[in-house]
Every structure is written in structure tokens, then in C-alpha cells.
């Protein structure tokens, strides 16, 4: 049984905008799944339909086998959602917010208080549990929404841009936390604009554009499709001009920095060997752009061109 099955899902808003044009999607249980797409692609509409915040126009959706048309309560009991926009009462304290949320899912108050302590501590919010939520920092507010979504220990956790506006240190700690939640068995669907985040965390991926799924594959398989990667190399000594490396396009971007395009059939050892022969010592190297970002842009651009 899949955590999420969506068939021929369509949504046309009152203003005539067709946000979803017949989406088919399956997410296996236990997966860490990336749902990517440009702004306005239909990601939030799809999540909205699954969580019942948006009324679908056509098609069907099942959450762990529960049909959202016929067994909506059971389907919703399986889902925890972290929306893109902050949507808690800013005048309430974090502890009140998460304990009440647990109550909406039928968790008795004493158990809700135990879980509140556990999740607020894990997400480093316990010291702020009695303060009004409006006084929390941006990162704390994001973590509060994650804690709130976990209070009923959902089987499917949907995260819509959970790390937007969060500094890198907090983001990394949130990644570790989400990995652990997923390792314990929670299926996670993640939408994000940080493609490094999707590449680091997710095993499977779908790319949505213009209301349609334009790609659906394993992350590793998708990344293998990248034919050429550009590497940025930093030289130990200044260079007067870009060296000639047969078969490798090379550009000198400043006197210490080279950009080298390497295709799948070529290898980096060869590049380093040739540079050594020319007396050029490389002290550091990085990808010019995130690999997933490159594939994403190609797929989305193709969609626009079509």
C-alpha cells in the first residue's frame, strides 16, 4: 500500500486558472520524497487537496489507502502537514499550540504534554515553551510548525518549504531531525526551493511544472542523466590564461579560478593529470551549480519551451 496515490487529479480555480491538469503520482510508504517545481507549478495546490484545504475539481487521492472523498477523517488522521506560510496563533505559547494540535487528533492531554516536551526539546524550543509565539525567531517558528505537525505522530509528513528563510546551521540540524523521523518509519514528502536539500535528503523525486508531472524517478537515477558537469577549480598560483586541455572546455574566470566542463564519459583524474603536467596545482574544487538544479532547470525550461 502506498502512502499517497493520486490519479488524474485536476484543479481549476474560480478565476479559471488550471493549477493541476491531471496529476498521477504514487509515493511509497517509508519514502523520503521530493516534490519540486517552480513557483505556481501546482505543488501547494496538490498538497492543499491532499490535506483538504483545497477542493479538487476532479480525480482521486488516497492516503494509506483511505480515499479522501469517502474516508476523509481517516485519511487526515494519517497526515501531518507543515505549510509554507506560518499558520499558528501568534498570541499562544508553543506548548499550548502543540498540545491543542494533538487534541485535534484525539491525543489525550497527559500524553500530549509528554509529546510536547519530547518534540519541543528535540527541536530546541523547550526553553521558549511559555513565551508567546510571535516572539520567536523565524527559524524557531519553522521548527514550531514541525513540532506541531509531529504531535499526533503521523504516518505521512508533508513539508512545504520547511526551511525557507532558515539559516544554514538550523537547516542542517532540521535535516538531521527529518532524516531520523524518516528512519523511524514516517513517510516524508518535501517541497523545497533548496535543491541541495532535496538531493541530500530525498530518495525519490517528482518534478511538477505547469500543473503536470514532468519527471518522476529515483534521485540517483535522475542525477545519472546529467551528461556534463562544470567544476570550479582553484589554482595555487596565478594564471595568465586558460590552459589548453584537449577534449575539456576550460575557462579562466579570474587569475586563480578555472571552470572545466567534464562529460560522463570523461573523468576528473585525467583533468588533474593534465593540469599537473602543465605545472598547475589545484588546491580546491567544487561543482559550479548543484547537480539537481541543473537537471531541474533543463526539465522546467523544456516545459516552458513546449
Amino acid at each position: 500500500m502506498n502512502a499517497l496515490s493520486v490519479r488524474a487529479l485536476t484543479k481549476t480555480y474560480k478565476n479559471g486558472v488550471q493549477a493541476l491538469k491531471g496529476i498521477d503520482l504514487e509515493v511509497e510508504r517509508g519514502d523520503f520524497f521530493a516534490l519540486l517545481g517552480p513557483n505556481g507549478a501546482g505543488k501547494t495546490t496538490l498538497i492543499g487537496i491532499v490535506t483538504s484545504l483545497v477542493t479538487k475539481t476532479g480525480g482521486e487521492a488516497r492516503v494509506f489507502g483511505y480515499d479522501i472523498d469517502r474516508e476523509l477523517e481517516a485519511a487526515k488522521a494519517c497526515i501531518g502537514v507543515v505549510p509554507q506560510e506560518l499558520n499558528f496563533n501568534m498570541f499562544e505559547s508553543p506548548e499550548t499550540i502543540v498540545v491543542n494540535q494533538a487534541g485535534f487528533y484525539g491525543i489525550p492531554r497527559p500524553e500530549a504534554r509528554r509529546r510536547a516536551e519530547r518534540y519541543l526539546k528535540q527541536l530546541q524550543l523547550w526553553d521558549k515553551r511559555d513565551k508567546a509565539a510571535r516572539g520567536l525567531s523565524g527559524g524557531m517558528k519553522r521548527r514550531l510548525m514541525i513540532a506541531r505537525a509531529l504531535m499526533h505522530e503521523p504516518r505521512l509528513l508533508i513539508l512545504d518549504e520547511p526551511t525557507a528563510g532558515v539559516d544554514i546551521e538550523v537547516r542542517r540540524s532540521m535535516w538531521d531531525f527529518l532524516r531520523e523521523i524518516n528512519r523511524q518509519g514516517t513517510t516524508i514528502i518535501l517541497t523545497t526551493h533548496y535543491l541541495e536539500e532535496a538531493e541530500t535528503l530525498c530518495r525519490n523525486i517528482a518534478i511538477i511544472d505547469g500543473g503536470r508531472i514532468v519527471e518522476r524517478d529515483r534521485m540517483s537515477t535522475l542525477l545519472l542523466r546529467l551528461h556534463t558537469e562544470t567544476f570550479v577549480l582553484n589554482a595555487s598560483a596565478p594564471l595568465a590564461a586558460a590552459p589548453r586541455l584537449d577534449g575539456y572546455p576550460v575557462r579562466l574566470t579570474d587569475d586563480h579560478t578555472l571552470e572545466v566542463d567534464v562529460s560522463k564519459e570523461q573523468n576528473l583524474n585525467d583533468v588533474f593529470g593534465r593540469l599537473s603536467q602543465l605545472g598547475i596545482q589545484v588546491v580546491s574544487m567544487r561543482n559550479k551549480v548543484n547537480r539537481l538544479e541543473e537537471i531541474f532547470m533543463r526539465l522546467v525550461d523544456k516545459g516552458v519551451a513546449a
Partner: protein
Amino acid sequence: MSTLAETVTPEPLHLGRIRWIGFKTVVLREYQRIIRIWTQTILPSAVSQGLYFAIFGSLLGGRIGPMGGFGYMQYMAPGLIMMAVNINSYSNVVSSFYGAKFGKHVEELLVSPLPGWLIVSGYVTGGLVRGVLVGIAVTGVSLLFTHIHVQHPLIMVGAALLASIIFSLGGFLNALFAQNFDQVNIIPTFVLQPLYWFGGIFYSVPLLPHWARPISYLNPVLYMVNAFRYGFLGVSDVNIGAAFAIMVGAAVALFVAAILLMERGAGIRE
């Protein structure tokens, strides 16, 4: 595709338990809100109704003379208590639910497994709680000015609860349709206030000119106030059975309307 599996066995779903605890949580959250901002929810009515008693009762009431066989202050007291109960029930639900819409935290409830009828019931019970708390406070204030005897306690309690439910449901419908804070205030100011002033709080219907009496009987507040007054004083301008029939009918109609609109997602879902 990899074979993935959950390591945690999910607990079986008990929808009945989810609903009961969910309902209690909605009510408790409303209660916490009422108590947290008691200077906005409880105190103003106690003060304003105290002023009514002081001005209309003590200063002017002595010159008006008895009404319905009772002193004017005693005659007016049940209506003023009822007005406070109803206005507070209405404003509690409209401000709380619209505030949740405006702040988007209504989504906490909408994504939860609680059905629409239960969310409506939770908010209405919250309105009822505030109505009762304010009713107790205003009754306490009225005791500073006059003696209150309760002739028919069940009728008094029944009328207060039914009227509170009706106004809470009215507040819920207002909040569903409201697109901004102006629309939250329009109904209380331009509809409810006139209905109250012409709802028999300050006068008995036979005192009105002949042409105004039939119009007065179209006012639903007249039935609520008179049923409540009958519970206290044993006098009424309307038939008590008819008053309760109208109140029950209105409560059922408004509850059904609120549930249908919730299920359709009117004003809350795209």
C-alpha cells in the same frame, strides 16, 4: 524503485475518541482565550450593563413607574442580562473564528480529522461558555441595584442557553462570510443592536402604538427576552411555548446552515 517499509506499526484509528477529545480541545481553547483576555471578553459587559442599571434603572426608572406589575429596574434586569449573554456569544464566535481565518490558524482545524459539524459545535460551545460567564457577571452587577427572584428556573436557563446557541451560530455564519474586520462589525452594529433596542428589554409591547405591535412580534429577540423574563418574573408579552418553538427552530436551522456551509468550505477553502 527501492522497497521501503514502515518500521512503526500504526495504531488503529478510533474516530469516536478523536472526535470527543477534539471537541473538548476546541472548547478548552476557546475557554483559555476568553480567560486570557477577560478584560475584553467579560469585563466590558459587566461595566456597560452596570451603566444601564445606573442610568435607566436608578436615575430614570423611578420616574417611569411599575411595568408588568414590577418595578422598572426589576422588569428591565432580565432583558439586560439576556442582551449581554447574546451579544457576547455572538461576538465571541465571530471574533474568534474570523481571527483564526485571518491569522490562518483555522487551518490547524481544517487539516485535522475533525468533521465540520464538530468544529461548529466546538465554537458554538465556546460562545455558550462566554455567554454564561458574562451572564453570571451581569447578574452579579444587577444584584447591586435590584432584587432578582427566579420563578421558573428551567425556563430561565433553557431560554438563556437557546438564545446563546442561536447567537453563537449567527456569529459563526458571520465569520464564515466575512472578508475583513469591517464585515465582522456590520451585523452587530446595524442588525443586532436595533433588534435589541426594539426587543422588549426596556418596555412591554402593549405600551407601543397599535401599528407598531405586529411589527414588534416579527422581532425574534422579543421572544428570547420575554421567555427569559418569564423565567425570572413569571410575566411575558408572548406565548412561552411559541417562544421556545421559535428558538428551537432557529437554532436547528442555523446549525444545519452552518454545517452545510462548513462542508462546502464556504469562506474557508479554495
